[in-house]
């Protein structure tokens, strides 16, 4: 019985990590459904971008209030993880505050965790107010109805509970230390929880140990739950922001990807020695589909983008189409892509590794044509994203499918394209009149 707690802890830890590993594998499998694209170039620039944008949060502070609050919660998350490491070691070995041998430095660490925990509680409350009382526009757009709205609040509740448990644990620990309880050696400094400790005055050592142990267990179980909640939540960004910023585009935002398959055909058309009637070679691959109508037609980086999106809505609030009441919302493009990808992933899991046609696709079933045609390609969404997501590239790939596979452009655009084909300008002017302006008064 002596080791019961250690064994239970080890089981919880292994189960938590195993379930998390399973989800990470599914995540990787789903992202790999995307088309190949080589982004292994310019490693040093990419590392720098990741350090600046993900670690340094350089784009978060463009909006100072949300940005600074986010930095606090983020620092709290990262730094309190050192405490989690101690909890894991204590849990496995049955020790108590195993890092206490660091002496003064340990006191400093615990003290800073406590201050951060308090700041996190403040930030989380402010975030909650912004979502639920102030009701900022970008948090109540149509695509946020239902699960996304609940998800956003749930994360705040989890963080709040975790921080309160952490402080309760320390407060009861402090009380036990002062009572000279066995096993509870004096260690740590408690600038915040010392104000909670008086609540526990007069309680017996047994009760205090029960409170301390309960808080300790709930805290670590909460963390393991949170780890596994990530996959089902917008909160996946705390992990994926790093690869996402690393693989983010290094080109000028105006440079849209070149479609290789089209380049080959155009070269063939321009080659005077090519035989227009030649049958394709026996071993020629089937012609590639142009553009994207479903998630498998997108590149893996676009799918990674979708999983990384934290639904903050900065893209949508900067989008000129959305600002003027059009249906397009770049955030919805990312959320739809993730939802459809998850649906395809579940299909593959259910069918033992093979995708079985389900009669659905990203186009029309998730993203409407009206949304796609409302985009001005202004790159405001790309600029606004704090973690280098590119909703515009998905919109463009889907337009390519509509135009090149389906000839389904709005009729005005068909006239424009006809004009370019026939007379080299989007309007019906004769190319031979191109220089007339020079002689007109």
């Amino acid at each position, binding site marked *: 019985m002596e080791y019961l707690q250690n064994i239970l802890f080890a089981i919880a830890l292994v189960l938590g990590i195993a379930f998390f590993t399973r989800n990470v594998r599914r995540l990787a499998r789903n992202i790999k459904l995307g088309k190949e694209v080589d982004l292994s170039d310019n490693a040093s620039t990419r590392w720098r971008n990741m350090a600046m944008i993900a670690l340094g949060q350089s784009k978060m502070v463009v909006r100072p209030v949300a940005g600074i609050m986010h930095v606090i919660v983020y620092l709290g998350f990262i730094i309190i993880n050192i405490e989690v490491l101690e909890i894991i070691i204590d849990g496995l070995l049955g020790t108590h505050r195993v890092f206490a041998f660091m002496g003064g430095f340990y006191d400093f660490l615990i003290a800073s965790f406590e201050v951060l925990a308090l700041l996190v509680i403040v930030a989380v409350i402010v975030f909650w107010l912004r979502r639920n009382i102030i009701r900022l526009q970008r948090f109540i757009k149509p695509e946020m109805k239902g699960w996304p709205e609940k998800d956003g609040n749930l994360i705040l509740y989890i963080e709040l509970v975790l921080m309160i448990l952490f402080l309760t644990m320390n407060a009861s620990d402090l009380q036990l230390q002062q009572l000279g309880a066995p096993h509870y050696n004096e260690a740590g400094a408690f600038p915040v929880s010392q104000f909670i400790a008086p609540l526990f005055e007069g309680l017996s050592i047994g009760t205090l140990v029960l409170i301390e142990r309960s808080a300790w267990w709930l805290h670590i179980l909460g963390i393991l739950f949170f780890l596994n909640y990530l996959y089902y939540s917008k909160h996946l960004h705390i992990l994926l922001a790093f690869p996402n910023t690393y693989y983010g585009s290094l080109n000028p935002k105006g440079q849209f990807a070149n479609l290789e398959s089209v380049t080959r055909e155009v070269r063939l058309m321009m080659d005077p020695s090519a035989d227009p009637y030649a049958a394709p070679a026996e071993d020629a691959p089937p012609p590639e589909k142009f553009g994207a109508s479903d998630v498998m037609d997108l590149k893996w980086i676009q799918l990674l983008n979708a999983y990384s999106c934290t639904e903050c809505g900065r893209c949508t609030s900067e989008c000129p189409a959305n600002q003027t009441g059009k249906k397009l919302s770049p955030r919805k493009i990312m959320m739809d892509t993730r939802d459809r990808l998850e649906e395809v992933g579940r299909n593959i899991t259910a069918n033992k590794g093979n995708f079985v046609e389900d009669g659905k696709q990203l186009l029309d079933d998730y993203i409407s044509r009206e949304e796609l045609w409302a985009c001005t390609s202004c*790159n405001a969404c790309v600029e606004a994203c704090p973690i280098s997501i590119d909703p515009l590239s998905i919109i463009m790939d889907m337009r390519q499918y509509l135009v090149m596979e389906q000839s389904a452009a709005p009729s005005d655009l068909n006239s*424009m394209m006809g004009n370019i084909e026939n007379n080299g300008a989007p309007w019906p002017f004769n190319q031979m009149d191109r220089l007339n302006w020079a002689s007109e008064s």
Partner: protein
Amino acid sequence: MSNEINVPTMASLFAEGKEPEVLFWVGCAGSFDDRAKKITKAFVRLLNKAGINFAVLGTEESCSGDPAKRVGNEFLFQMQAVTNIEILNGYGVKKIVTACPHCFNTIKNEYPELGGNYEVLHHTQFLKQLFEEGRLSLEGGSFKGKRITYHDPCYLGRANDVYEAPRELIRKLDAELVEMKNCKKRGLCCGAGGAQMFKEPEKGDKDVNIERTEQALETRPDIIAAACPFCNTMMTDGIKNKEKEASIAVMDITELLARAADL
């Protein structure tokens, strides 16, 4: 104001065995749109004044392919690009200047992968260089005391990070440059990009150009400066919609400079 402008074509220079310092890529709007043609001519007057040895392609120029690419017609885009590149490379063009940010972006960023490698400048960058090199100068201040707000074209600003060249030119006018609440990286689109210029907008509460015009009006400007023929059209429409065309002018930076130089 002199109407005499000198516009040599690439073909005529080539026939004489000469090579221009820079090719002026006029673009479809600059060639055909009545409002944009004025911008083209203002730019040519400045080039003539600075004594720049330039040429245009004239009837050999064709759409850069930008609207086709943004619509999703990669095939049409590449056909246009490859045809243009063949002509540009045939003349051995090395440096291109254009008054259209869409042509600028496409030729600069999307032609290289298809075999077209040139030094490409937007006209505001080119004019800024001419001032720096002392080949152009301004005296007097016909815009002194005027409030000018500058609308960043998406394809010049966010797409290519060119924010300062147009502003530096405006500062030369001795006028007061007033920024809109959304400017530079956070500049709001005029509503024409992504081939929206050529179609009706989707259903919504208002048009994008009206929203942008309202932002411009908040700065109480005398002049809205543009640097793109499409932005110019959209902002001009916005000003007309607000019935302010009598008091507020929408002008390309080139036109402001040409007027300041009495051209």
